[in-house]
């Protein structure tokens, strides 16, 4: 449990464990193309942010 209030887009590109590069499924590879700045909103509550606007890029890639 993070002690921080989370800001920004909850689905931004990130690496977790050895999951960075490989697509979880071939069909999701296209999601690697960044969206048109969907992450401008700032969230201060730490509440989950809907991923539908972002394409769930983190989940789409793994290494």
């Amino acid at each position: 449990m993070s002690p921080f209030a989370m800001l920004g887009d909850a689905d931004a590109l990130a690496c977790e464990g050895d999951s960075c590069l490989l697509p979880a499924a071939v069909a999701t590879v296209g999601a690697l193309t960044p969206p048109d700045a969907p992450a401008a909103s700032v969230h201060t509550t730490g509440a989950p942010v809907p991923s539908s606007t972002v394409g769930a890029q983190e989940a789409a890639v793994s290494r």
Partner: protein
Amino acid sequence: MTDTTDASSAMSASASAPALPAAAGPIKVDVWSDIACPWCYIGKRKFEDAAARFDGEVEVEYHSFELSPDTPVDFEGDEVDFLATHKGMPAEQVRGMLDHVTGIAAEVGLAYDFSSLHHTNTVKAHQLLHFAKARGLQLAMTERLLAAYFVEGRHVGRVDDLADLAAEVGLDHDEVVAALESDRHLADVRADQQQAQAFGITGVPFFVLEGKYGISGAQAPEAFLGALQQVQGELAATSGGSAGAAGVAR
């Protein structure tokens, strides 16, 4: 953006919640990152973009995070070989995926070259970053290592190669070799990792603003900028003045 790279870090001193600043000043940003993390380099660029547009001063300190600590120092083969062999993916699929990542990097001005990338263990590179931090050169060393790994196909796992890269940013080659061979900063790396664990950080890049706000991943510059402005506003309200109005220092 200033380089908070002296030997004593408030963030590394304790795994307890960091204290908020008493008065307005540079916004402290602690970044957990790994060298072998494509989104960390992309995120670094996006954050720098935001910091350049931010009307205030930002103080950055990097912290160690190993994504794949069991990676051998020397892996024979390129990125396609590694992924195809270890993940069982068809080479063509790997190449297509890498092309996408390379394209995203290119959008922020980074010329990733996965065909020349050397897979390696990054624990020595992290030790080097602590060595550089103690000499006020952590940001320069971070940039040098990321470029060496993702753009230039340099090896960032071997002591001699790391010492060569360190010399390029002004560190003493032989001193670096001695520090890395003796694991002088291994405890510092482990302390960063333990703090990340205590904070619940499971992915990188992870940015912590003023020990209070967390930002995960390679966010759009607008997201970083908005977060910096929010923190600046809160600091100004707390101190009754303007936080870091002296301008941006990079």
